[in-house]
């Protein structure tokens, strides 16, 4: 599948470098200002303004979005994005517009993400869009400028890896648990240089939301992109989306999309197999997403690790995380819960949380917040009455944005605070200086919010 998309987007190959055509380009306020600045400085134009879409999401507040932003720098970045979109005639989904939200939630929702296309954005979690059988990857700011000016990118052809997840997920084990288990298995650099294609029964049985969660975190295994062959679920999702093809055009597209999946004899540079039934709910204990175990596990004991580099990195992580060796995961108490981010803020995630917390109360020792991925999701959740369930259980119900996934707005952990988070990165300081992040599924986050510590959501 990767080869098919790559070949059909190759403009030229020269000096060992390839120019690849880009079909959709998404921009946000943090990684784009310098790209537009670069265009102005060199007197260049945007080649195809109609193929680029912008949304502010990274540093916007999640309350009072109708009011001016307090933080002067965030306000300046959002204002700069508005000005750049005006000057260069780019479509902007601005704050207050229901269509706005986290860039990787907005793209699929608007039908901008379609099978067989190439999609880029100045954010590493662009891999999310691979769930639709597109080739989607994160780029740096110079590349944002390059796409704006040329609608292409210079790329080296990556290698391909197949990850086969066979069998079906056990009840209440989620796609997030699968991807954390995969990263735990292959490591945070196991995917380096690869585009990963996921296949197997477990993947086929996943909803589009679940597939997005999976592809989203592919980047945390070090890979360029993750992708899943499009099928009936994909096509069903895309029908009637605002920017997806319609009518006759949709029917024609469908014929082409159905030919995308990898041929039976397709060759991959590497193959990894996993049995879905073996995966239990996952919790990270360290400072990268590969430092993970399951709910019945314990914090590792560095003294059992032979390799000295590995040992010291575990020691360092435990020190930062304020964890003692051998402590059962279930005994780790938390202070905060964050449900949101482009990994897990979609309607299905919110429904699973609502189902679990209905009629329960958030532990008195825990502050918990839920940040929907977009205005559309927020409205849908409210139409379904989920917000009432959340609020009466004691959750804070916010407006859409990246929020505490990277804590560039006011949603920040205090030093030393421990958070069960549905986001994608548990790096030192990611959710605030000295913050301690445990990555989990929405269901686990919900269960931990109620219990005040990690518990097996399947038993409660």
């Amino acid at each position, binding site marked *: 599948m990767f080869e098919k998309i790559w070949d059909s987007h190759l403009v030229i190959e020269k*000096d060992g470098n390839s120019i690849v055509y880009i079909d959709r380009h998404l921009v946000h306020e943090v*990684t784009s200002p310098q790209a537009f600045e670069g265009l102005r400085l060199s007197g260049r134009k945007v080649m195809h303004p109609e193929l680029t879409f912008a949304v502010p999401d990274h540093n916007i507040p999640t309350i009072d979005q109708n009011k001016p932003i307090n933080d002067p720098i965030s306000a300046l970045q959002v204002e700069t994005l508005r000005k750049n979109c005006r000057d260069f005639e780019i479509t902007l989904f601005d704050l207050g517009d229901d269509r706005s939200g986290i860039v990787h939630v907005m793209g699929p929702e608007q039908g901008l993400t379609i099978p067989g296309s190439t999609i880029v954005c100045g954010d590493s979690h662009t891999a999310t869009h691979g769930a639709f059988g597109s080739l989607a990857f*994160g780029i740096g700011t110079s590349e944002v400028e390059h796409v704006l*000016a040329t609608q292409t990118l210079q790329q080296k052809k990556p290698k391909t890896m197949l990850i086969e997840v066979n069998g079906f997920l056990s009840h209440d084990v989620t796609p997030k648990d699968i991807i954390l288990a995969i990263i735990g298995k292959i490591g945070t650099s196991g995917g380096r240089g690869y585009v990963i294609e996921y296949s197997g029964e477990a993947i086929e049985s996943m909803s589009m939301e679940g597939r997005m969660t999976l592809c989203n975190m592919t980047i945390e295994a070090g890979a360029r992109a993750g992708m899943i062959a499009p099928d009936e679920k994909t096509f069903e999702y895309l029908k009637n989306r605002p920017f997806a093809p319609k009518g006759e055009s949709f029917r024609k597209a469908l014929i082409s999309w159905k030919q995308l999946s990898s041929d039976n004899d397709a060759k991959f540079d590497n193959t990894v197999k996993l049995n879905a039934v073996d995966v239990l709910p996952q919790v990270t204990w360290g400072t990268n997403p590969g430092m993970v175990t399951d709910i019945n596990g314990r914090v590792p004991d560095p003294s059992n690790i032979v390799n000295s580099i590995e040992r010291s990195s575990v020691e360092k992580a435990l020190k930062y995380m304020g964890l003692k060796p051998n402590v059962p995961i279930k005994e780790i108490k938390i202070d905060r819960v964050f449900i949101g981010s482009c990994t897990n803020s979609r309607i299905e995630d919110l429904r699973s949380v609502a189902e679990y917390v209905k009629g329960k109360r958030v532990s008195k020792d825990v502050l918990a917040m839920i940040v929907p991925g977009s205005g559309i999701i927020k409205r849908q959740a409210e139409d379904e009455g989920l917000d009432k369930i959340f609020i009466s259980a004691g959750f804070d119900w916010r407006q859409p944005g990246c929020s505490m996934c990277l804590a560039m707005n006011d949603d920040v952990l205090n030093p030393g605070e421990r958070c069960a988070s549905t986001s994608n990165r548990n790096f*030192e300081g990611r959710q605030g200086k000295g913050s301690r992040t445990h990555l989990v599924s929405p269901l686990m986050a919900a269960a931990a919010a109620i219990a005040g510590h990690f518990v097996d959501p399947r038993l409660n």
Partner: protein
Amino acid sequence: MESFKILKGKTAPLDMIDVDTDQIIPKQFLKKIERTGFGVHLFHDWRYLDDEGDILNQDFVLNSPRYKGAKILVTGENFGCGSSREHAPWALFDYGFKCIISPSFADIFFNNCRKNGILAVVLKKEEVEYLFDEIESNEGYQLTVDLPKQVVSTPNGKNFSFEVDSFAKNCLLKGLDDIGWTLQYKEKIKDFEKKVVTQKPWLFLEK
């Protein structure tokens, strides 16, 4: 962009693995809308004891006077992992690092280095270990990085060769900007669009 040919300079060690871009330039500094001035914030959370960046952390290796003015950084595996922020190479460049040597780099970071005139050199693990020892025991240690010949030379005459693809080499040597390179092929891009618009019209959108 500045061109890169032969660099001789003071060399600093950062003996850690998996240094991610959040550590290279913490996110609170991403809010600027310019490309320059990130050097003072490089490794902020390690380098300073306070949020404002007024109090230096004397225990952090780059704060040691012996590494002041270093142009080359030697570091552990998987350097530059995590977020794709290009502020990381901007900060390294602005601080003064023109070359980073490691057994391995994260993909996006590696490319971002080249685009910003920084040469990222992959040496063998043993070679990097050797350099750590040498830097540690020799004050004012200087390496010479020769891009045309693709070798890193130590003061005691050891030469470590490295790979670099011809395109990256060419761009770094000439200080060539990527967009300029691509726009040489503008006609080809237009031809490509004409072809696709008939085959797969749904990939294009109305203006």
